[in-house]
């Protein structure tokens, strides 16, 4: 059985201008020891879908799912008390904004020790030792000294690392890391990514990494899900995805990478991601897709086969060529 199993997850926000669907029918399945990434443009619902899993969305959000299970628990019906037992121990998350998840009123050390007190049987002394060890692992120099610092006394990069230390405190079964290294310098980033993959290797931790950095994706994970406008449009093993993307959005995204271009001018994707009021009727990517035809603009595509990366597309690409076009013409 998968560690995390999500089927047909949708999230709708109530807004002053009406309902807004931020996540639209997403499936995710994660096994023990999995290393997966979710990539996609800003606003594509990466954070919201994972916050839904954590049960951390505001009341304006309506969450629906056919299945939402973690380690055998149904997350949809879990009581608050049962949830608090799991979250922070078996399931933990590194948030996109570090400042929002560290409490400004307590020292970093207190917050790490408190997590350990709630979820482990370590005694006082062992908790302090473990806290120092965690701070060392995330590359914080002079950890004994930093433990008594308040979050605002640390630089952005430092508090980001303190938060990572806290999320790793109980060696979770699944870590959801939302842009964990975006605020960090590349030399520190390398260290953190190594720490995460090392934990996977050593403890069998599974990782869901949310990022927009295709370099980080290529170097860190084994499997990639691509999101566009709240939908999952493709999922593949990382090598296969970079070799032969099956959804036109993935293909366009990869070709926009500067390092893949020989030319002075880079390939671009015209237009922008649809918003609340200009959501197209058929395929959500159709206004920007170079392969779109009348069918794409009118009819929502179904998921393609596993061999075609479950591409949410009428004409999934194979070696850059759209499949099935003649049949419909």
């Amino acid at each position, binding site marked *: 059985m998968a560690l995390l199993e999500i089927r047909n997850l949708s999230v709708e926000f109530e807004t002053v201008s009406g309902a807004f669907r931020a996540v639209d029918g997403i499936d995710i399945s994660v096994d023990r020891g999995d290393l997966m990434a979710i990539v996609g443009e800003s606003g594509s619902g990466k954070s919201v879908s994972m916050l839904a899993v954590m049960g951390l969305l505001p009341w304006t959000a309506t969450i629906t799912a056919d299945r939402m299970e973690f380690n055998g628990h149904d997350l949809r019906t879990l009581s608050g008390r049962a949830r608090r037992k799991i979250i922070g121990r078996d399931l933990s998350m590194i948030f996109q904004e570090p400042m929002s998840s560290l409490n400004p009123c307590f020292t970093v050390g207190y917050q790490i020790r408190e997590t350990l007190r709630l979820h482990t049987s370590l005694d006082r002394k062992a908790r302090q030792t473990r806290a120092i060890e965690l701070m060392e692992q995330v590359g914080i120099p002079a950890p004994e000294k930093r433990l008594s610092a308040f979050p605002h006394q640390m630089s952005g990069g430092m508090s980001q690392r303190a938060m990572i230390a806290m999320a790793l405190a109980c060696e979770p079964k699944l870590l959801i890391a939302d842009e964990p290294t975006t605020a960090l310098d590349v030399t520190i*980033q*390398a260290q953190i990514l190594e720490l995460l993959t090392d934990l996977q290797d050593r403890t069998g931790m599974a990782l869901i990494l949310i990022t927009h950095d295709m370099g980080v994706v290529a*170097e860190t994970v084994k499997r990639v899900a691509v999101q566009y406008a709240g939908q999952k449009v493709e999922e593949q093993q990382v090598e296969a995805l*970079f070799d032969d993307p099956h959804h036109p959005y993935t293909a366009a995204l990869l070709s926009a990478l*500067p390092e893949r271009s020989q030319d002075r001018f880079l390939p671009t994707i015209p237009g922008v991601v649809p918003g609340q009021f200009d959501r197209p009727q058929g395929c959500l990517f159709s206004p920007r897709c170079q392969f779109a035809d009348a069918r794409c603009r009118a009819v929502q595509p179904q998921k393609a086969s596993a061999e075609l990366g479950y591409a949410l597309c009428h004409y999934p690409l194979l070696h850059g060529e759209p499949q099935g076009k003649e049949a419909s013409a």
Partner: protein
Amino acid sequence: MSDTILTAENLTRHYSVKGGLMRPDATVRALDGASFSLRPGSTLAVVGESGCGKSTLARVVTMIEPATSGRLTIGGKEIGPNGAKGDRDLRAMVQIVFQDPYGSLNPRQTIGQTLMEPLLLNRPEIGKADREKRAREMLLMVGLRNEHFDRYPHMFSGGQRQRVAVARALMLDPKILVLDEPVSALDLSIQSQILNLLVDLQERLDLAYLFISHDLSVVSHFADELMVMYLGRPVETGPLKDVYAHPRHPYTRALFSATPVADPRRKRNRIKLEGELPSPMAVPPGCPFNPRCWKATDECRQSFPEYTGGRHSYACFHPLAKDELPRAETQA
């Protein structure tokens, strides 16, 4: 060189910060002796870790702040302590585009007003009709449309706002554009649009770019020359291809090796750096990189290495040999 438009020699910007309770006054050596030149139609990229002085360099070059020492020559004029005050031609010569396409535009001004403002302030002799004509031409130049003229910034996407910021910077016909992380806040699909725009404008207007970025994949696509900074100082400068082919400074090598590459089949060779980037308030004596450098010797801890090499210059007592395998390098 005869065709340089800007020359910086030992450009330095220190800040004094008042100490508080129990803390003495201190000097922040934000920019600590940078020498380089810019040429028309050419791009110098500046890379380095957060806090190494890139934005400080940008502000000094744009004459927003004076240098505390060193020489800055722009278009043959030596810049004094008053910067471009009272010299509107000089002020027009260097313009800047910032990272944040949200914060850098006035939300209460229409795009048209935003574009016309520099002319109003700097070229008051230009009449209203002409001002508007030039602003509308500029809109088209950066790939926006005529109907955008009367709209407000909040109606634009991040990429469009960055186009507006570029358009505004170009209104005074500058020769030099300082670009401080111009695409860092943008999505990949929008980033390529803006980079293409910058390439196109450079070719058409023969602009010199000082391009600040932390993204080496963008830099290697875009730049002609590369300057790697560490703690306020350039540690290595030279033609991009040469620096890539043979980085001489250990920090350059470490930076390259830590940068993730979007190729899952590539073998990683990461150099693990020990320690933190020290604060510019407490720059270590000798080579500023010595506490983290795997090649450091006593010499490195005592004196600052001179710049050596020609167009490809570097400051290191133990420059790397070609394809030298650093001891600290780990195979992953």
